[in-house]
C-alpha cells in the first residue's frame, strides 16, 4: 500500500519534473522555433485530453503565421518518416509523455 502510494507519488513527481518542453530535433531559425514551441505547449495544455483538437489548433495557427501547408502529429507512441521543407521542422517532447512533430511541406 505504502509502496504503491510512493510509486504514484514518484510518477506524479517525475511527470512534474519532466513536463518542461524538450526539443528533440529542429532545424528552424531561433525566433520561429521559440514561437512554435510556445504554440505547441499552449495547444497541448488547452486540449490536454484531445490530441486531435490540439493538432488542429497548431496546424491552423502555423498555416496563418508561416504559410501553407503544415502538418502536425501529436501522440504518445508513433514512428514516422516525413519529407519536410528545409528549416521548417520541429520535433519535441512535452508533459512527460507527449511527443509533437510539426513540419511544413506543400
Amino acid at each position: 500500500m505504502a509502496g504503491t502510494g510512493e510509486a504514484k507519488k514518484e510518477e506524479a513527481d517525475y511527470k512534474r519534473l519532466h513536463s518542461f518542453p524538450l526539443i528533440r530535433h529542429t532545424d528552424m531559425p531561433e525566433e520561429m522555433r521559440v514561437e512554435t514551441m510556445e504554440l505547441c505547449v499552449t495547444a497541448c495544455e488547452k486540449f490536454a485530453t484531445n490530441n486531435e483538437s490540439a493538432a488542429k489548433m497548431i496546424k491552423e495557427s502555423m498555416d496563418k503565421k508561416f504559410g501553407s501547408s503544415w502538418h502536425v502529429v501529436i501522440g504518445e507512441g508513433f514512428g514516422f518518416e516525413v519529407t519536410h521543407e528545409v528549416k521548417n521542422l520541429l520535433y519535441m517532447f512535452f508533459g512527460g509523455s507527449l511527443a509533437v512533430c510539426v513540419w511544413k511541406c506543400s
Partner: protein
Amino acid sequence: MRKGSTVQKVLLPVAKSTKPASKKKDEDEDPGEGWDEWAQGKALIKPPDQLELSEAELKEEITRILTANNPHAPQNIVRYSFKERSYKPTSAVDQMAVHFVLEGSLLHEDSDEARRLRAKEGLPEETATVDTGVEPDEEEPETSDTPVEDGQEVEEAGEEDRPDSVASKTDRKEPKVTNQFNFSERASQTLNNPLRERSCQTDPPPRGTFTATATQWDIYDAYVEELQKQETNKEKQKAVASKKDNDKGKKKTLLMETQTDDITKVGKASKIFERMVNQNTFDDIAQDFKYFEDASDEFRDQEGTLLPLWKFQYDKAKRLSVTALCWNKKYQDLFAVGMGSYDFSKQGRGMLVYYSLKNSAYPEFIYPTLSGVLCLDIHEQHSYLVAVGFYDGCVAVYNNKEDGSEPMYKSTAKTGKHTDPVWQVRWQSDDMDNNHNFCSVSSDGRVVSWTLVKNELVFTDIIRLSLNAAVSEGPEQQPGIACGTSFDFHKQIDYLFLVGTEEGKIHKCSKTYSSQFLETYNAHSMAVDAVKWNHFHPKVFISCSSDWTVKIWEHTINTPMFTFDLNAAVGDVAWSPYSSTVFAAVTTDATVHIFDLSINKYEAICQQPVVAKKKTKLTHIEFNPIYPIIIVGDDRGYVSSLKLSPNLRKKPKVKKGQDQPKDSEMEEAKMEKLLSLLREPEQSTV
C-alpha cells in the same frame, strides 16, 4: 501627259506616296506650275538605311515558306513536375495566335436564356409585331381594323408563324425599328500590340526527410538525460564560484579574453591596416630611408648631411620632454622613449612610449607613469624587459609581453629606492643564479645593483660616490656625497665601469671595490651629462657636459685625448655602432654634431640643426644598431629620425692583397692609430 505623269509618280518610293497623291490632284488642275519639280524628281531615291547589296545579291532568289506556326510562340517550354521532382519539357507548344476577339450576342432559340428573354418581352413584342405589320401594310388601311381585332389572335399566331422574326426581335427592347437601308456602319480596328507571354518559375524550396519514433521510454530517457545535464551545469557553476576567491586575477583575464575575443581578431587586422596606411602616407620617407644615398656627398669633400625622416610625437606627451632613448636590439625598428621633465620645479607625471619605424603616427606601447621617466634600458637578450629610472628615485621593470600599464617590479622606500632622481640604468648580464639584474646611478650618490628575484627587486649598493677620492672613517673628515649623473659599463670587462658626477668628475670604478675608485678624472667644470665607452676600442671613452665640451679619453691617461667645444651645452653624446671614430653629439641649440676622427680631428664633419625652432633643446641621441639612422629627442616631446649620408659612414679602405680583417679589429686599429699619434708626444715629454 497626265497619265504619263501619274505613272511616273507611282515609281517613286513609298515614303513619298502620300504627297504625290495630294499633289496629283492639284496638278490635274494646274499642270503648268508644279511640273518642273516632278520632272526633276525622276531619279530613283533610296532611303538612307537601305541595305547595300551587290548586283548578284540583288538578283538572288530567296525562298520563303509560309507556315501556320506562330512566330512568337516559344519553341520549348519546361515545367517543374512535382511528381518526378525535376524539370521536364512540355510535349506540345500552343501555336494559336489570337488577333481579334468579338463577343457575340446570338442565343440559341431553345436555350434557357432565350426562353427567359422571350417571357420578359411578351408585351413589347406584341407592339413590335403590330408596327412591322403597319408599315408594309400602309397601302391597305382597310385591313388595319382586322389586325387590331385579331391583335390577340395575331399575337399568338405571330409567335408561332413567325418564329424567325421573333428571334431577331427579342434583342431589341425598344419598339422603334431601325431603318435597314439608311444606316451606315463604321468600324475601325486599332493596332493591337502583339501579345507576348512571359512567365517565371522559381525553384521549389529545398526539402529534407526526417524520421523518428516516439515511444514512452524514449521520452522518459530524454527527460532524464536533460535533467542530468542541467544538474551538472549547476554543479560546474557552483565549483567555479568557489574558486573565484582564489584565482581572482586569472578569472579576470579569462573574462577579459571572452569579452575581447572578437575584438582581438579585428585588432590584428587593424594593426596591419594601420601600418599599410602609414606606409602609403609616408611612402617617400620610407623610400628615402631604404634607398636614398645623398649623391652630393662626393662633391662635398668630407662633410656629410643628415636627411630628416620620420617625426614621432604623441599627443598626450606633448608637454613632456624626451629624457631617454633606447633601441631594441632584437626588433631593430622598435625604440623606447622615456618622457618626463628636467625642470626641477615642474615635476609631473611621465610616460614610457614605444615607437616603431613602421608606424610613425602612433606609439606601439604606452605606459603612463606617476613620476617623470629619466632613463631607460632595454635588455639585450630579453627585449621585452625594460628597466626604467624615475625622477622620484624609484626604479621599475616593465614587461612588454604582459598587458596592463603597471610595471612588473617596482622599487619602494623599503626596498632601497634612491632618494634622488635616477639618472641612468643599465642591464647587466645574468648573475650566477640566472637572475636578471641591472644597475642604477642616482643623485643620492649611490650606484645600486638590482636583481630580479622571483617577485621582487633585491638591491645591493655597489659603491657610494663621495667628494673625496678616499673615504676614511675618521671624525675629522665628513665625506660629502657626490651626485652621480651618468655611468657606463665596459663592453668587455664586466666589472669595470665609469661614473660621471654632477661636480664634473668621472670616476673609474670596479664592482668588486665598493669603497674606492680606481681612478678619477677631472673632466668637466659642470655636471657630466653622459659618459660612454667606445664600442670597439677597449680603452677609449667619451664624455659630454653642460660646460659646452665633449672630451675623449683613454682610461689610462688622466687628460683627455680630444676636446671639442660645441658652443652650446651638450645634452648627449653617442658612439656609432659601425665605426670606432664616429660619434654624434646634440646640443641645446637644436644642432646635431657628427664627428669622424679619422677624417677630421678638430671639427665636426656635420653640423646640422634638426628641429625647426632654435629654442628647442635636443636632449638625447641614439644610433640605430643596423640602419644608418639616428633618433634625436628634444625637450618638446618630439623624436626625429634622420638618415646619415654616406660621408658619415665611411669605412677604412682595405689594401688589396691583404686578408680582410674583422670589422671590429679594423676599427680598433683605426682608433689605435689615432691615439698613438697623440700619445707619442706625451710619452716623449714624460
